[in-house]
């Protein structure tokens, strides 16, 4: 398209990806992705920006109250958000803790996406007893409240962060599988699928290339919203001592330690919880926004 006078005559024709423009016009998408980008950057450069060594203990500063950014007119780097039960800097630990939370969110969601998409796609496409078997299996997983099943799995496999991620992933599979399945069921009947099949295309390629490529939007929405759920689940497991283990820093663990001194040092529990809330808020805003942009059908669910 040349830069012809027509471009002046029709000013509404802007350059750029129309989808991207649609996304950028959605307030929720912008707010959510701003929050998440900020946290991702913090997590990525975390070790270089912590104001103090997050592992250094200082017996004299146990439960030190937050000192803020300015102390006596000078910029302060020490215990900006106070210290925990071993005199470690809360802000530095929050920054490093962001890594565990986001990692668990991404890894658990990726695993559940992998299994959920494959199981849902096969279930919807193949149908019959395969569909029945897979969906009944999903029903069994859904028959337990998610956090309860996650706790039971971690209890069985042993309490550590890897098992916690596995457990969270397993719990999240059925929801994704169901969404993918219903989409595959709908798309399977469309004419272009008939056409590809009539051309003699391999069934596996029909499913994974042609059908799934048209079913990604609702899955993306569910996965984004699921990130928040996964992060809260990790915090809950770590809070119960079933997730991250010392010396690993996790927001959930910080909460459980802070609980011991909730009377004298409420700041130790305040900030990690606030951090979790902000992450979850970011992902749910983004998820809601994506749903509005991509998929009107999902709005009621």
């Amino acid at each position, binding site marked *: 398209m040349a830069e012809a006078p027509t471009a002046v005559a029709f000013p509404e024709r802007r350059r750029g990806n129309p989808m991207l423009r649609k996304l950028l016009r959605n307030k929720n998408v912008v707010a959510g992705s701003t929050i998440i980008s900020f946290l991702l950057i913090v997590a990525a450069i975390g070790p270089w920006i912590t104001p103090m060594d997050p592992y250094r203990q200082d017996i004299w500063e146990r439960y030190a109250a937050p000192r803020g950014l300015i102390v006596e007119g000078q910029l302060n780097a020490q215990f900006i958000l106070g210290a925990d039960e071993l005199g470690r800097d809360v802000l530095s630990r929050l920054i490093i803790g962001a890594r565990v939370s986001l990692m668990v969110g991404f890894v658990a969601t990726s695993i559940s996406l992998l299994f959920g998409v494959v199981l849902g796609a096969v279930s919807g496409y193949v149908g019959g007893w395969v569909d029945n078997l897979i969906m*009944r*299996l999903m*029903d*069994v*997983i859904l*028959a*337990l*409240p*998610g*956090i*309860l099943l996650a*706790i*039971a*799995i971690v*209890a*069985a*496999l*042993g309490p550590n962060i890897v098992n916690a991620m596995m457990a969270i992933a397993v719990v999240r599979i059925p929801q994704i599988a169901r969404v993918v399945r219903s989409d595959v069921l709908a798309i399977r009947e469309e004419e272009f699928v008939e056409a590809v099949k009539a051309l003699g295309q391999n069934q596996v390629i029909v499913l994974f290339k042609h059908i799934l490529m048209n079913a990604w939007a609702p899955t993306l929405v569910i996965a984004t919203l699921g990130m*928040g759920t996964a992060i*809260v689940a990790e*915090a*809950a497991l770590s*809070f*119960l*001592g*079933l997730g991250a283990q010392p010396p690993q820093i996790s927001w959930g663990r910080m*909460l459980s330690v*802070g*609980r011991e001194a*909730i*009377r004298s040092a*409420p700041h130790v*529990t*305040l900030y*990690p*919880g606030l951090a*979790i*809330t*902000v992450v*979850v*808020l970011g992902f*749910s*805003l983004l998820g809601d926004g994506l749903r509005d942009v991509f998929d009107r059908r999902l709005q*009621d669910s």
Partner: protein
Amino acid sequence: MLQYVLRRLVSLVAILFGVSILVFLLVHLAPGDPVRIMLGEEATQIDIDRLNRLYGFDQPLPVQYLRWINNALQGDLGLSIRQQLPVAQLVSERMPATIELAMWSLAIAIGVGIPLGVLSAVRRNTWIDLGSMFAALVGVAAPNFWVGLILLSQLALHVAWLPIGGRGPSFGDAMVALVTRFDGLVLWDHVRYALLPALALGTSIMALITRLTRSSLLEVLGRDYVRTARAKGLKGLTVVYGHALKNALLPVVTVVGVQFGYLLGGSIVIEVVFSWPGVGRLIVNAISQRDFPVVQGSVLMLAVVFAFVNLLVDLSYSLLNPRIRYG
């Protein structure tokens, strides 16, 4: 309708059967010999063998499962390794506390969420609306156990009549005292213990209900029949409460139903925070003590309650909304 109920019951039984296998396998996948852990380092092999025989741990897994499920169907969930008490007794003592907590959470969530949502919709785009929508946004995102910790540190530790944990008299006892002896103090005692944990557990649902009530009511207020009612000269509030709200609440009811089951799961962590003697705390304690029969039995019982709650919720839709018919 009857046919639908029967079909649901059959599939419910099948799913619970699957759950029982899952729970059993999970517990038996666990590394570490529970008997050895229980007896400690100095235990002799003879003692270990004897206890293994006593609990049936020396049998092959399928035999152990069949024995367990057969007993479970007769109400026997085995013996707690740690407390030497029947698991069924431990669970049934604590289940009412868990259900009670979930009910209170739901009551608070509905009691606050619906009026707040209505207020937001009626006073649209005022600071009341913006404030409650912001609160609802944060409320959905905040982990319930953190809300609990904040309530503990900001309220329970400063307000004399709010206990920092534990459970008062049960709701049933409180009602009996109120009705037979006109004694309201027992009920008060019950409420002050339940208040904070229920509030913490109910926050996210409260927030969800507020948002849904607002959006649903706004949608209904735009419909023709509402305009007709206004045109007849009815007062604003009569239109909202008499005409619009009833229809606006249908989606809210659906969400409340779906969420109630999840309150049972969410209560696990809340029970730990507030030392609430429910099934959740029983499970968490049993896990740390490697008391497998208790973990097995209580997870199974929670699944049973969860399943029946979900079934009841589904069935109640048709009562609330005559447009839904089950074939």
